[in-house]
């Protein structure tokens, strides 16, 4: 039997690669599909790991570690690079001392993201080399190459992965942790590290020289390879797209680019001359295609390969050979099964209330974005992390005086610390009064239970300093800070109404732990039950949209036969296996039809 530890996900492989590469310091912010890199890396001895409050901080921490001569890693999802873009573009000028690698985990198809931006564009824009593996084994190998390149060329290096590398498992070889070429110490290098204009202009020149040198390396490096084959149609491809090309056209000549920026022009030119027809296969933007066409090389790309969503073998095959691949059955029409907040989720109580308050709900990124879905349908905008608060402020300013009670903003504890706090400071400073609701469930939930600065534990689960959210809000000048238990739905409504009516900034902290917290999952099973004798079929509990509560419709005449009022259309039923004992349904039931008991 093969050693099972060598079959691992791309994210596990990157963590292993970081350990083997001798990384000293790694900082990241959770975001699908990048999260498991840091989670796994935190379990290795000898690597300092942390969750940063946001991606900008994570990258800045990594830059600091590199300045001190350590090997440094920053991990984030694709949209996280937007947050980290400010230090990124200047770190490109400074370079570092120890190797500095940034993981950009992109999410084509938006499995768990608000957009599907193609972060290869950042490599071009920031003039930073980018390696692009196609599978877990390569992800590990390329990370090690990234550190060598970073130190040889004095540049940050991107490793770009996508969901189908991060969350794909494949066979990976284990190696040994390497001794790094330098050990951390202080060495002042002001001409390189202090980017005031006079220094920056000099570094600007170094950036271009470095890119030229990197291009030369790319011409002969092991990560850019020509696979000989049928030259009637040759492919240039990178990342996971390479795998689809190999499956669809196993005999074709392929130039596989392990580095998608900068490009090896001579190699590409030579390859294009060796084939009759050149096709570029890449997900999302025509990145390779644009730059290859700019070299004056004829090729086909986005005219046949979609520029939206993920690719797969069938898409690549059919793009070139329409109708090939055999019969495909149609998707049958079935009721949709969208994701939903868990049974017992504290967010549900808040969104149930908001759905009945006729407000514009300025939302944010997290599990609670699911408040958008029916039957709650209580989220009216979601743009990016932290945007909830300034968007509400901007709306109130545009709507004019007396409109502060028409808009609320909602975000989670982790999101508030990530970038919501600056929005709240603006609300106080520039004086608007839209209420902010912080959904404090003690954890970064959507990405799978990561600790954050409010949860009292660090990445390893050890005790850490915890930010006091109430004190923080008061410190920035919010005079009205409320704390509510969202499971008591009617009481929460009263507090929300009071806060929203105020003409000064207010914050309502909705505090109840995520039901997926391990310590809650282990609790004695207690559940709520429907007392069917008392249920009048009013559907109050059904409207919560809790997955543990179902509507059992009566058949013709069944209501009378079972002794209910003739007009009653059915009953509610609570599934005690799914119930997580939150009691929101019981707090809404006016007929004593829901009670709590031992399961």
């Amino acid at each position, binding site marked *: *039997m*093969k050693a*099972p530890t060598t*079959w691992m996900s791309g994210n596990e492989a990157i963590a292993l690669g970081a350990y083997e590469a001798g990384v000293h310091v790694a900082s990241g912010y959770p975001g*699908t*599909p990048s*999260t*498991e890199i840091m989670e796994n890396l935190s379990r290795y001895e000898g690597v300092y790991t942390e969750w940063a409050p946001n991606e900008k901080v994570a990258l800045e921490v990594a830059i600091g570690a590199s300045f001190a001569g350590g090997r440094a890693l920053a991990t984030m999802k694709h949209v996280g690079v937007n947050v980290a873009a400010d230090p990124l573009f200047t770190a490109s000028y400074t370079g570092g001392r120890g190797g500095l690698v940034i993981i950009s985990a992109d999410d084509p198809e938006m*499995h*768990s993201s608000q957009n599907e931006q193609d972060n290869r564009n950042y490599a071009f824009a920031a003039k930073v080399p980018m390696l692009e593996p196609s*599978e877990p084994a390569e992800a590990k190998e390329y990370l090690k190459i990234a550190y060598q390149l970073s130190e040889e060329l004095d540049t940050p290096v991107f490793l770009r992965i996508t*969901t*189908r590398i991060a*969350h*794909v*498992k*494949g*066979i990976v070889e284990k190696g040994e942790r390497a001794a790094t070429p330098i050990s951390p110490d202080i060495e002042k290098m002001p001409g390189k590290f202090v980017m005031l204009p006079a220094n920056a202009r000099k570094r600007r020149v170094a950036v271009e020289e470095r890119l030229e040198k990197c291009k030369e390396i790319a011409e002969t490096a092991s990560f850019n390879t020509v696979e000989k084959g049928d030259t009637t149609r040759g492919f240039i491809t990178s990342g*996971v797209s390479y*795998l*689809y090309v*190999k*499956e669809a056209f196993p005999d074709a000549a392929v130039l596989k680019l392990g580095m998608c920026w900068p490009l090896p022009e001579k190699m590409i030119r030579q390859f294009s001359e060796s084939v009759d027809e050149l096709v570029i296969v890449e997900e999302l933007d025509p990145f390779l295609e644009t730059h290859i066409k700019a070299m004056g090389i004829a090729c086909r790309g986005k005219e046949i390969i979609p520029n939206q969503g*993920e690719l*797969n*073998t*069938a898409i690549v095959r059919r793009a070139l050979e329409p109708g090939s*691949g*055999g*019969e*495909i*059955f*149609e998707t*049958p029409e*079935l*009721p*949709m*099964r*969208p*994701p*939903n*907040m*868990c049974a017992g989720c504290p967010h549900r109580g808040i969104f149930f209330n908001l759905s009945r308050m006729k407000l514009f709900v300025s939302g944010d990124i997290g*599990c609670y*974005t*699911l408040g958008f*879905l*029916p*039957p709650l349908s209580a989220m009216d905008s979601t743009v990016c992390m932290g945007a909830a608060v300034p968007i509400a402020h901007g709306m109130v300013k545009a709507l004019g005086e007396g409109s502060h009670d028409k808009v609320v903003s909602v975000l989670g504890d982790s999101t508030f610390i990530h970038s919501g706090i600056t929005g709240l400071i603006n609300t106080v400073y520039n004086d608007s009064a839209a209420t902010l609701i912080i959904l404090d469930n003690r954890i970064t939930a*959507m*990405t*799978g239970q990561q600790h954050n600065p409010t949860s009292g534990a660090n990445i390893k689960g050890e005790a850490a300093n915890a930010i006091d959210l109430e004190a923080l809000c008061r410190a920035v000048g919010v005079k009205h800070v409320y704390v509510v238990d969202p499971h008591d739905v009617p009481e929460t409504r009263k507090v929300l109404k009071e806060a929203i009516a105020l003409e000064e900034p207010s914050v309502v902290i909705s505090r109840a732990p995520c039901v997926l917290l391990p310590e809650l999952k282990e609790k004695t099973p207690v559940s709520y039950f429907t007392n069917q004798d008392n249920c009048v079929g009013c559907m109050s509990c*059904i*409207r919560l*949209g809790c*997955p543990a*509560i*179902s*509507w059992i*419709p009566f058949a013709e005449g069944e209501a009378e036969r079972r002794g209910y009022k003739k007009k009653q259309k059915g009953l509610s039923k609570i599934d005690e296996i799914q119930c997580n004992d939150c009691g929101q349904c019981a707090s809404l039931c006016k007929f004593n039809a829901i009670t709590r008991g031992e399961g």
Partner: protein
Amino acid sequence: MKNQGNILFSGVGGQGILLASEITAYSLLAAGFDAKKSEVHGMAQRGGSVTAQLRYGSKVYSPLIEPGKADILVAFEMMEAARYLPYLHRGSQVIVNTQKILPPAVATGQAVYPENVLDLLKEREISVVKVDALELAREVGEVRTVNVVMVGAMSAFLPIDPSVCIEVIEQRVPERFRQVNLQAFAAGQKASQ
């Protein structure tokens, strides 16, 4: 022995599809195959329709199963068997848990759960094995072993000896759950005979 294949696992987030696909994958790896598995985390996992895709062979490139190319579908819920019809072909083998989990629109009375949903498969010459995995899991004393019951039911269609799967469960499942999972596997095996 078939030297390559595509196995699709479908169900509802939280049903333990990931563990089922892991046990299957490790069994195939133990038998000397290359294998790749693809899954999706994050928002996609919150009670929605989920899949794990497993491909094995002497060398696997793509981690994704092409539409029309899944040889086996292990569906943890009735409707989630029909939803992935485009991945199947005539002659595909489906192992389906007859459990119904109501999606929100059905639970709130806005839509009805489709009747005879498996006919969609049978009409297209797809072979269907039905397993009441929830009941079997109850019988072994742990409702959370639905996933391993399903692996047991599927194991007859894998190109490997079931003893390999049993070895993998013995090695990979924590001790306090090991016995009940081995029973669940055996119950699944029996159910698909």
